[in-house]
Structures are given as structure tokens and as C-alpha cells.
């Protein structure tokens, strides 16, 4: 079982279960897994909203919220109270039932997706044989929820936002799944727990995280790009696009239901970051051997916070894409690159049996060379002969 500090939550669960009457053990076990997930990630959502507003403020050279509590830290509570006490407005023309169901249809699958993420050693709520497929399958459910929200509002901005969101999520789901195929291929399993275990070893003074292989680097970047599109984050946030279609599919939602949509969006981001950590960043493993004493869940959540910080940083830095640019990028760049990455992963795996001096460097050079050549060639050919020249401003006459 490893050291007790690392396993404290597992031990705690078993200890609590020992008090439970015989017949209720399965239900109690489920509750003891589900409630912490809901509480921890819900709390993380509150923390992230304040971090995001503060971080964006800093990037945009302003303070961000600083009125409620010390340094504005209680802002999420104030926001929550505001959201809960606001009037819940449903448009008269709206499809009442579907308008009501949409936020819950979004939240449900997102929470279910957490059940397969191993957040620490022996700490996956559900160790499924086909866990990764499960994750992607429930993720697919959120697209329909967004469509329900947008369509039932009977508002052209919501419908436009929903159609954009669905088209974008479908297009980027393909590269998202394809970029995780090399990991599945080389770990030889669809189970997230097994994938994390496959990254546990050390060699050449380096952790065997998938990130530290040529296909892993490329795969991680492709995964992150597709993930930011799946989570509707900048630069892919055109479904919401405040300046064009106000808030997209959430336009006609107010009060608690709006908060639910907001929560669903952030939880989706955390889930997909968690998946990225599981697939490429070694899950709950520590980066160095001498840091193994730090409990595994600290590593997972530390990495998660780092990923969230990167997303906040991106949001503060990058402008929004146009719809056709987004689609073109997804289908013409991401898809070929992810397919090529599968091939490179195969080369990396098969060249493991080569035996001559300096084979490690040769493999690296070969795989990285193929990827870089494809990147440069694809990028050049897609950019065409459009050169980035002096910016020309046009004004309305």
C-alpha cells in the first residue's frame, strides 16, 4: 500500500467503510468516492474563478477583484450569492423543458468523466478496463447539452453560438482522440491507471513520462491545442465570443442555470487537463526520484494548477480566431499532424530493438526530424503566399 501519508484518503475510506452495516457497503463506497470528487473540483472551480480574474487583471495591467475579503479572496462566495439570488428568467418563446434540462445535461457527464481519472496512487474512483473510451464517450454528451441550451432559447445568437460550439467540438474531438492514440498504443491499455503505471519508471536520469519522448512532446502540444478548443477557451472561444454573439448559447440563461453552465465549462477544462496529465505528464508520479516522498495527490493537483495557469495565461495573451480559420486549422493542420504522430510513435517503438552505439540519439533525431519537417512543410503550405506585411487599417467611409 505504500506509505500511510500517501494513502491517507484510501485508508480513511476503508476505515469509514468498516463502520458501515453490511448491506450498505456498496452504496457507502460509491458515496465516499463521489462526494469528495464533487467537493474538491467544485472548490477548485471557485478558486480558479478568482485566480483567473486576478491573473487576467495582472496581464491586462489592472488589479482584478480586490474588494471582498483579504485581497479579494472571498469574491467567489460573493459571486455565488449573487448568482443564487438573481431572478431566473426563461424567455416566453423558449422550449421550457429543454431549456431547464440543458445545464444539468452539461454538468452530469462532466462530473461522471472525473470518475476514471486517477488523482493519486490507488485513487481512481472507477478503474475501468476501457476508462479512456469512457472519458471520451461521456465528453461527447456535453455537445448535445450545449445544443439543447442554444436551441431551446429561441434566440438567434444562442442558436448561432450553439452551432458554432457543436461544430468546433466535433472537429476538435477528432484530433483530441487521435493525439491520445499513441499513448494508448505504447502503454498497451485503455485504462488510465495502467497508463499512469506505464510512466512510473526512471531511465537515463529522466522520468519515463510520455512527455519526454519525441511523439510525446508533439502529442502533448496537439492535445493541449485540441483541449483548449474542446473546453471553449481562448483562442478558440468563438462559441461564446462576447464581442460578436454576446455569450453564445448561454445568452438566455440567468441566475443559477447560468452559474451551472459556467461551472460545467470550468469542470470540463479541469477534466481535460486531468486527462492530459494522466496521458502525458505522468499522472500522479513525481518528476524526480528524490521527491517521491511528497504524496501523489499533491503532484496531481500541482500539475493541474500549472495547466490551469497556462490556460489563463493563454487567455490573457492570444486573440480569438475566426470561424473559418478555426475549422481550417483543425482539419488541415491538427488532423494530419496527429495522424503523423501515430506513425512516429510506431517508429519510436519499433526502433527500440535497434542496437548500435548512439542509438538513443539517432532515434530522437529521426522522430523529431520527421515531426519538425512535417510541421514546417504543413505550416508553409497552409500559410500559402500570404506574407505578414505592414498592417493596413480600413475605416468606414
Amino acid at each position, binding site marked *: 500500500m505504500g506509505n500511510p501519508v500517501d494513502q491517507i484518503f484510501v485508508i480513511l475510506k476503508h476505515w469509514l467503510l468498516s463502520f458501515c452495516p453490511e448491506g450498505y457497503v456498496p452504496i457507502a463506497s460509491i458515496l465516499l468516492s463521489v462526494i469528495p470528487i464533487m467537493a474538491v473540483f467544485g472548490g477548485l472551480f471557485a478558486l480558479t474563478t478568482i485566480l483567473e480574474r486576478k491573473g487576467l487583471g495582472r496581464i491586462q495591467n489592472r488589479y482584478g477583484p480586490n474588494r471582498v475579503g483579504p485581497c479579494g479572496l472571498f469574491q467567489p462566495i460573493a459571486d455565488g450569492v449573487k448568482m443564487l439570488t438573481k431572478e431566473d428568467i426563461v424567455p416566453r418563446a423558449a422550449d421550457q423543458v429543454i431549456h431547464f434540462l440543458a445545464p444539468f445535461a452539461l454538468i452530469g457527464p462532466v462530473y461522471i468523466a472525473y470518475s476514471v481519472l486517477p488523482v493519486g496512487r490507488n485513487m481512481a474512483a472507477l478503474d475501468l478496463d*476501457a476508462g479512456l*473510451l*469512457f472519458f*471520451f464517450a461521456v465528453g461527447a454528451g456535453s455537445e448535445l447539452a450545449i445544443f439543447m441550451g442554444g*436551441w431551446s432559447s429561441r434566440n438567434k445568437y444562442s442558436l448561432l453560438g450553439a*452551432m458554432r460550439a*457543436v461544430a468546433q467540438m466535433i472537429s476538435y474531438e477528432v484530433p483530441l482522440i487521435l493525439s491520445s492514440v499513441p499513448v494508448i498504443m505504447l502503454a498497451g491499455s*485503455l485504462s488510465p491507471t495502467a497508463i499512469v503505471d506505464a510512466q512510473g519508471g526512471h531511465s537515463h536520469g529522466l522520468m519515463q513520462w510520455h512527455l519526454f519522448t519525441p511523439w510525446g512532446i508533439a502529442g502533448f502540444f496537439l492535445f493541449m491545442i485540441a483541449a483548449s478548443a474542446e473546453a471553449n477557451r481562448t483562442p478558440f472561444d468563438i462559441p461564446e465570443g462576447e464581442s460578436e454573439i454576446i455569450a453564445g448559447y448561454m445568452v438566455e440563461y440567468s441566475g443559477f442555470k447560468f452559474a451551472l453552465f459556467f461551472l460545467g465549462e470550468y469542470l470540463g477544462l479541469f477534466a481535460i487537463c486531468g486527462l492530459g496529465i494522466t496521458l502525458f505528464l505522468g499522472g500522479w508520479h513525481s518528476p524526480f526520484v528524490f521527491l517521491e516522498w511528497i504524496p501523489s495527490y499533491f503532484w496531481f493537483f500541482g500539475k493541474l494548477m500549472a495547466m490551469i495557469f497556462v490556460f489563463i495565461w493563454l487567455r490573457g495573451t492570444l486573440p480569438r480566431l475566426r470561424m473559418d480559420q478555426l475549422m481550417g486549422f483543425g482539419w488541415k493542420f491538427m488532423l494530419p499532424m496527429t495522424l503523423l504522430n501515430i506513425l512516429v510513435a510506431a517508429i519510436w517503438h519499433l526502433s527500440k530493438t535497434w542496437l548500435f552505439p548512439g542509438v538513443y540519439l539517432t532515434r530522437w533525431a529521426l522522430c523529431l526530424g520527421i515531426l519538425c519537417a512535417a510541421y514546417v512543410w504543413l505550416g508553409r503550405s497552409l500559410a500559402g503566399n500570404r506574407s505578414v506585411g505592414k498592417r493596413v487599417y480600413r475605416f468606414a467611409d
Partner: protein
Amino acid sequence: MTISFIIICCIVAVGAIAAMSLRNLVHCALCLTVSLAGLAALYLRLEAQFVGFAQILVYIGAVAILIVFAILLTRSNEPDESAVPRAGSWSGVAGVAVALVVFGTLVLSILSSSVGKTDLPASPGATVKDLGNQLMTHYVVPLEAIALLLTSAMIGAVLIAKPDKLRAGRVVKGGGEHASGT
């Protein structure tokens, strides 16, 4: 017959009946989704994990979205009186009657056979790994064939649905008229 089985069956049946009988087409598509999700739960009960998740991924993640897009693109989401046959119309009654006859025949033959009375046998313990091994060895030719089929279907669908260059002007004009009319 356990409670969970009854609940799942009710979801599947009610979803399917609603999908086939509601007036609003988007509601039909959403009910279809519910029914197919229930079906995926049945697969999971039968310990076909991979198929159950693939069912959700393909049907809810792709086919349902495709149907919804088609409904919106063809502007048939407005409740249309002519879409549902009036009660007592000849074709509607005949269709339901044929379906009932088929259902009755199937149920009679199922109940009269001796095969289906056995209880659930021991779990086969088939893992995703076994499935993958089978796909890559025994079923590799069908796998390649289906890859070809999917590619050609994708290209074909794009070609069919793409507006004809020659008729492009007319199509855009027609669409514009329609949009302004609603």
C-alpha cells in the same frame, strides 16, 4: 428481472416511442439520444464495455449531432402538421398494424423457443485487450474494409451535400428567400 433492468428498458422503450411519435423533430432527435443511451446501459449490463462506450461515442457524439444538424439545415424543426399522419388515415393505421404484427410474431417465436430460458452464464471476462487482439489478427480484413468504407462515406457525404457550383447562385438565392420568410 431486476429493478435496474426494468428502469433501463423503460428508458429505451419510452425514448424510442417518443422519438417516433413527437411532432417537433428536435424533440424526436433528443428522445432518440435518450433511447440509445439506455441501450448503451444494456450493453454495459451484458458486460460488453467497449461496445457500450463506443455506442455512446458514435451515436450520441456523432449520429445524434448529425441528425440535429440535418434537421436545422432542412428547416424541418418547425412543427409540421403534415409530418404526422392524422388519426384514422389509412397509411398511418396500416404502418402501425404491420409493426404490431411483426412485434407479435417476434414475441411469439421468442417465447415458444427453449433457448432463451437459461440464466446468465458466468462472465466471459473479455477485456478490451482481447478485442484488440482479435481485431488485429482474425478480423483485420473487415477492419481495413470498414476503414475504406468510412473514408469513402465521408468523401461521398461531403460531395453530395456540397452545393453544386453551377447551381450555386440559385441555391443561395433560394436559401435567402426562405430565411427572410421566417
